[in-house]
């Protein structure tokens, strides 16, 4: 009952490379018959530094939400370390509105494995962990099968493809904690503890897993690596938006006719993605609001979408961010107060509880938003809500605090009328609390 990559050939000249239209690509023989593991072979003939350089020049930016340049991140890893080095591939994928990594694992798992191996070679790492969210039990089995097949084919393990390069890949299963998608919480989870984020500095490249140099990359980011090595940085850097190039898995959910994951070059117009790729709004209704990259990105008004493109720079200019490129569309009949109250509930449930601002602030925001939802709020509650959000943002160990504050702040800023309307309809007179 899982998704098939949508057939969108007619919309674009883009030939899919992350989720190509090849039947049974998840099988190792099919993958190899379609030039699979050629990039690995090519990388093993290069020097590790040359691989990092190639990724740097490609301008690949992380696909997990922060858009950090991947090559730069890799270059932070110390060269002559007497400690072991580690790679963590982040498949925790728990941001509401995000469902792209599971597509890669289902339809093209060997691309992820190949990318993991190349990343290990480039950073001279011998142990990689792929951290998967616990709910993805089915996809963990699929990935494990692909890893087992790669072991049998001599592609993972000792002396890979007859070279001196050896590395092991292990899946580490999470157990239902959104916070473990945060890189330092993820490391604590692998170490066998509660998923608490760590204070930085020190950064993972200096002090990561078990105090050793560690790099953490998203599943989609790693899946771009074989494509860069295969086609060269020049080809890759010319795809899509200049400062944020490459293929992008854009997810569209909510009020659209054809929700799903669509592979496209970065920089596609947001309105085109909604109306053409995702088939428009049911009943031809208008768009009231859009989260462009998961629920923790700043919400955009439906009437401000013209000219916005799906890339880091364009969305930054629109005072939001590309996040995980998981677009959530809300039509003109949507009750945005219900939506934001539900989002606030999510962050309150998922706060790990280390920082007071986040632990207490997220539940306060949730309770106040519930007052709005139940027509029990007064005008002062709008300022109170903003005040709490402002006091969470930037004051916590990790970005969950910001992720909880941003949607609330942007909702108040961009949709004040929704809050005011609720206050006007309030059943509770001022000063009752």
């Amino acid at each position, binding site marked *: *009952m*899982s*998704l098939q990559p949508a057939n969108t050939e007619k919309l674009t000249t883009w030939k899919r490379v992350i989720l190509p239209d090849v039947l049974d690509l998840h099988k190792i023989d099919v993958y190899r018959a379609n030039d699979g593991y050629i990039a690995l072979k090519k990388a093993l003939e290069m020097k590790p530094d040359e691989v990092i350089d190639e990724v740097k020049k490609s301008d690949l930016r992380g696909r997990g939400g922060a858009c950090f340049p991947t090559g730069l991140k890799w270059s932070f890893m110390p060269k002559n370390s007497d400690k*072991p080095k580690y790679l963590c591939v982040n498949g925790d*994928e*728990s*941001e*509401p*509105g*995000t*469902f792209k*990594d*599971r597509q890669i694992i289902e339809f093209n798992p060997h691309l992820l494995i190949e990318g993991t191996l190349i990343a290990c070679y480039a950073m001279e790492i011998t*142990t990689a962990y792929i951290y998967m*969210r*616990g*709910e*993805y*039990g*089915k996809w963990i089995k699929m990935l494990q099968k692909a890893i087992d097949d790669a072991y049998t084919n001599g592609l993972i393990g000792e002396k890979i493809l007859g070279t001196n390069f050896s590395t*092991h890949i*292990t899946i*580490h*299963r*999470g*157990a*239902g*904690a*959104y916070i473990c998608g945060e890189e330092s919480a993820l490391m604590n*989870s*692998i*170490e*066998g*503890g*509660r*998923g608490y984020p760590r204070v930085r500095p020190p950064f993972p490249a200096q002090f990561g897993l*078990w105090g050793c140099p560690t790099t953490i990359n998203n599943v989609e980011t790693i899946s771009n690596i074989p494509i860069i090595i295969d086609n060269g940085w020049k080809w890759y850097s010319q795809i899509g938006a200049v400062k944020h190039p490459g293929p992008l898995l854009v*997810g*569209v*959910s*909510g*009020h659209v006719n054809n*929700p*799903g*994951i669509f592979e496209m070059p970065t920089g596609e117009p947001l309105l085109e993605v909604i109306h053409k790729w995702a088939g428009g709004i049911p009943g031809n209704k208008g768009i009231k609001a859009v*989260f462009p990259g998961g*629920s923790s990105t700043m919400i955009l008004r439906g009437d401000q979408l013209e000219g916005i493109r799906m890339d880091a720079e364009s969305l930054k200019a629109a005072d939001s961010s590309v996040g995980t490129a*998981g677009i*959530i*569309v*809300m039509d003109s009949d*949507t009750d945005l107060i*219900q*939506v934001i109250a*539900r*989002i606030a509930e*999510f962050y309150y*449930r*998922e706060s*790990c509880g280390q920082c007071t601002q986040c632990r207490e602030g997220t539940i306060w925001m949730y309770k106040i938003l519930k007052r709005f939802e139940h027509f029990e709020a007064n005008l002062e509650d709008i300022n109170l809500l903003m005040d709490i959000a402002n006091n969470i943002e930037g004051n916590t160990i990790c970005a969950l605090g910001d992720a909880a504050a941003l949607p609330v702040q942007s909702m108040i800023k961009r949709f004040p009328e929704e809050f005011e309307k609720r206050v006007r309809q309030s059943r509770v007179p001022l000063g009752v609390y």
Partner: protein
Amino acid sequence: MLSEENKNKVEELRKRYPTSQALVLPVLWMIQEQEGYISEESMKYAGILLDIPFSHILGVVTFYSMLQNEAVGKHHIEVCTNVSCILRGSGKILEHIEKRLGITAGEISKDKKWILSEAECMGSCGTAPMLAIGDEYYESLTMEKVDKLIDSLQ
């Protein structure tokens, strides 16, 4: 308490991690898959197996929402009620299931057969609304599909 097969798996996994503490989550998963939940006794067992204090194991079990420290109903239905799913009608789906099973979200049925809960985003936004029972996802739900599913599990 772990089966021989799982004990062998643990020994294999030890080679993949530099500390035994890293095996806490994998071992707890094995226990839960074997027993259905993780009892206090099992936690103590895991502690001895991995040479980790019981308090640490308890801390881990109580942190992760998927690790159950008490017996749950035979069928644990988790309905996603996060944004993408609400927008596509998960509220009505949940109401319908509540009516069918005679319990509300967060409750266990008297015969311990069903447990129903609201869940956070499980990455099925493109096939919303959805519910999960164990590792199995049921996606693009309609009332008819839900009825059929419950009938098949009765």
